[in-house]
């Protein structure tokens, strides 16, 4: 099929896509966007998390045929030419990145969590952060620095 969708705000067309391959595969192997990571391919780890029509999903479990006409946001769309996204900067500043494999998925999931919490009027609490990021596994950091990073990002995004 010819897949037509919007990725990070710009319209995209890719030919010769098999509907049964995953959206993650299309992004990484056909669109040159290797930011979203391929780890478990089973919905377990969250390293492939992208926005699909505004909500974070595991792109490894989305069939390419179902991405037709939809809006996708990946980690590549977060920073601008000038600066990192506040969530990215917070992960760096808090020391929440080691090998970095889980990071792209965590950045998207954190951006969604913080944006929703602030819209509802308050930065996320510890328990809320743990539950919201339960689907993003990290084998390196032990999560403490990630919690710090999320809180730092929330603080900075609230101040904007």
């Amino acid at each position, binding site marked *: 099929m010819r897949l037509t969708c919007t990725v990070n705000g710009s319209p995209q067309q890719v030919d010769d896509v098999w509907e049964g391959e995953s959206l993650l595969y299309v992004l990484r192997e056909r669109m040159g966007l290797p930011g979203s990571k391929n780890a478990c391919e089973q*919905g377990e780890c969250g390293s492939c998390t992208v926005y699909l029509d505004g909500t974070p999903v*595991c792109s490894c479990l989305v*069939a390419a045929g179902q991405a037709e006409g939809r809006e996708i946001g990946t980690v590549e769309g977060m920073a601008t030419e000038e600066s990192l996204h506040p969530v990215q900067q917070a992960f760096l500043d808090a020391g929440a990145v080691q090998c970095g494999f889980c990071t792209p998925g965590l950045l998207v999931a954190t951006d969604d969590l913080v944006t929703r919490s602030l819209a509802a009027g308050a930065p996320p609490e510890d328990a809320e952060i743990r539950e919201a990021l339960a*689907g993003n596994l990290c084998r390196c950091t032990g999560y403490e620095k990630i919690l710090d990073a999320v809180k730092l990002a929330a603080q900075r995004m609230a101040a904007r």
Partner: protein
Amino acid sequence: MKPFAFARPADAAEAVATVATEPRAVFLAGGTNLVDHLKLGVARPDLVVDVRRLTSREITDTADGGLRIGAAVTNSELAADRRVRERYPVLAQALLAGATGQLRNLATTGGNPLQRTRCVYFQDVSTPCNKREPGSGCSAVGGYTRYHAILGTSAALPDPTAPETCIATHPSDMAVALAVLDAQVQVLGPAGARTIPFAELHRLPGDDPSRDTVLEHGELITAIDLPPLPAGARSAYRKVRDRASYAFALVSVAAVVADGEVRLALGGVAHKPWRASRAEEALRGGPVADDAVRHAMDVELTTAQPQPGVDGGNGFKIPLVTRTVVATVRDLTQETQA
């Protein structure tokens, strides 16, 4: 992955007709279970039919005071709906106890109750499994049974080579809540529309463990209806798992307490969401103190058959599910008195 054709029909009727005429066709909704199984080789269809946009994505009020949930409503949307949170907390809690945000954003109302078992042997195509490959036997008997059934199985130690043996559990949290709420399933099939009481949707292995439900090939779930609960009813879902979050249930309980009537459904104990009608009957009209609930659960579990297996098997589920029911009902009745 085995290659397959992919269809995107224009409407539900065309989707039903398409699947009905191709014996090896399947519906695809959120994809969180089916796409996984396509990769693992657990599902090997010739044709995948995308129905995600073909059923309603709305939650509407029904004339009797209940709710109709379109099959395409996502698990996240359903759990966030104010009417669901206020009137059916058991359902919102069950949804939020399942999977993760990234998965609930994809998972649908039609797909969730139809997810397949998480039996590790079912998912491993190198091992015999009657559900995946009818007649090949059941690898779970005497194996890793921690997540397996204690109710509705054929025998205390089923014959692992018999074609009817299956001791798997149904993994959905949402389905346990729908069972206790007496939900109704709206179905569109090649022969027209029909309504199936949720309690009758899933089946026990019987003589054909490959079939999880009574749905015929080509039957599409279009919506699920929730009847209203009596005024003042309280409800809750409680799930016990190996870690605090993001794990399937060892056991779970969905409970509704209204005017001295107690309704109970159990998860993690059987091939289907298990409505504990014997316990409900034992409690009818009487007091609902801890002792009475414990006794009612003893009645319910008289036919329970713990499965031996590695790490001591799953006999722990009998006291565990009883204690979980007692605690859940206690919380609900104390809230009522308060």
